[in-house]
């Protein structure tokens, strides 16, 4: 039964990390242009170095 004492907090923390990550992406406007983002994958424009 002791395993529960580890696993439950771990699952909650991992889920929480995902949640925090999601909230960060919402706050930083990453869902403003879903269609554009899908198309941008096809462009090799910034493949070698990030956009300045």
């Amino acid at each position, binding site marked *: 039964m002791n395993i529960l004492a580890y696993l439950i907090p771990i*699952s909650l923390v991992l889920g929480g990390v995902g*949640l925090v990550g*999601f909230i960060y992406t*919402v706050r930083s*406007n990453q*869902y403003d*242009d879903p269609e*554009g983002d899908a*198309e941008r*994958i096809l462009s090799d424009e910034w493949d070698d170095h990030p956009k300045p």
Partner: protein
Amino acid sequence: MTVALRPSACPACTAAPAAEAAAERDAPRDAQIFLSLPTIHCAACIARIERGLSEHPGVRAARVNLTRKRASVTAADDVSAAQLVAAVEAMGYEAHELDASSLRATETDRAGRDLLMRMAVAGFASMNVMLLSVSVWSGAEDATRDLFHWISAAIALPTIAFSGQPFFRNAWSALKAKRLNMDVPISLAILLAVVTSLWETALSGEHAYFDAAVALTFFLLAGRYLDHRTRAVARSAAEELTALEVPRAWRIGADGVEREVDVAELVEGDLIRVRPGARCPVDGEVVEGTSEMDRSLLTGETLPVFSGPGQPVSAGEINLSGPLVIRATAVGTDTSLHRLADLVAVAEAGRARYTSLADRAAKLYAPGVHILAALAFAGWYLATWDVRTALNIAAAVLIITCPCALGLAVPAVTTAASGRLFRQGMLIKHETALERLAEVDCVVFDKTGTLTEGDPRLVANDEFDADDLARAAALAEGSSHPLARAVLRAARDAGVAPAKIENVEEVPGYGIRGQIGGEEIRLGRAAWVDAETGASTETWLRVGRRDAVRFAFEDRLREGASDTVAALRGAGHRVLLISGDTERAVASLAARVGIDEWLAETRPEDKVARIEALTAEGAHVLMVGDGLNDTAALAAAHVSISPASALDAARAASDIVLLGRNLSPVAGSLDLARKATRRITENFRIATIYNIVAVPLAVAGLATPLVAALAMSTSSITVSLNALRLR
């Protein structure tokens, strides 16, 4: 360049202007310019426009948003939007300037973000609670089960408190107004589920509905979010259309200097310069200059109207040939344009009376559920004399009947349908527009600007020969009058080179004159060249003393106009044409597109009266129109469509905006709307069948948390999948 004129503090900069220009480019004087790019559609478009714009001098950053089809450009102060528009058009894309201030308001979608956040939290919680619940369902007992229930409670309570707020708030405001809406049973179910579960947990009971409460919140929030997104996309696109008209005017100050000001700053009595090609910003009287005004958007007349000193002009008319100075007699909300736009507000209030399918369902549903739960409680209490059991059963009934599927039924379908229409170039503005569109059985078209493009073309006939065309084209070269441009285009298409001509001069409001070999030639209004005025759109060419030659013009049909009419008639709809233009013009156009019923020379009131008469006969009228004269008719019709090229007021009055040039999506949209309504009723039926199966289980006390979770998810997923069939 300004650099050379301005004394510089830095001597090196004077020596090297490029260095100063570079220094200037790094100075923090950025302006944000927004461009609308209606024709972009792929990765290559994005890359090309972003690269092209970044290479434009003065541009620091350019970002294209494909979802909203717009670009935001950060550029130095001296870069004008017109330059960028020209640059994008040179790349082969259509571009329009957007008014940055009216866009700012919609840049961040706060309500949507709020819903998304609540949905994320509910999703996170429901996954975790579900994990714990699965252990309970698969046989955890005693202390372990209690522990799992307590952990579930610790996750579910804060989640409900945060994520459930939109429902609680709506329900509370409905109760305060002594009404019932869908949110009342939802809130009651969520709260009752949490309260009885806590109670059960405290008494170490077997069943806790924490997972149901959280999953319910999650599913319903998903429905709300879908609903919000559909409307947010439409709203932002509609606002974009408003932003297309940048409200600026040239005011002549007391010192005689012209300044560009916002239309909002104009007051009565101001002198305003209206340049050729510009739209008149206010109602007023011409003080100086002569020109011709295009009134087609206001009245449906295709022939330009002469205007000179003393003549009244109203806001929205387009100045065609000469510069005018007008004295404002009415500004802002007093202009005739705005007064007509106010009619729209009245119509919008009328539209609100239409109850959507979802509301009608909720009206039946909410009281039914409450009565059922109350009966279950009373029955079980009388049977067992145990409040705990009775309350548990009542909660189970509320949870299992809770309109999870109903909450998703409408939003899922409307999202799928309006997404599909958006891709075809139609924008649904009003929330019930789709349902009303499905009921249409009679379609009324306006002529100018709706069935036709509102852009005249020269009709080739034997009244003039190639020499005449060459001379006319030579004169037309210097003018921006639409008829002159049509002549020029026809000459180019026919391969006729403009003749050699001297002393070309435009006489605003009349025409153009010039000389060939000492002989004066004129191209312009009938009266100016001593010819008889005809009924169609025409211009006359007179060479020396010879008889004037007539050039007749015809408005070109909008792309897809005939096909649309044919498709509508094929589908059994009644099709009418009502226009403010002359009888001859309307009759010939009606014959061309194949409409038998038509009315000409109608005033705005006549159009409304006709539509009201049709409605009284029991028809559901779809009005398609673009002019100010159509505004009231658009509002009076059951549902209305206007092209994006329409005047602001007309677009505001209509439920659906047609984004592209092509008219053919109209016929398809009626079909799609009908399919969408069918899907919505199907979804209601699915939800009802599910309730018929599940409610007896719940009332019999057999709805364990596992059954509730399974039933709820199944119905929600079925409903969503059914909606996806529309895509």
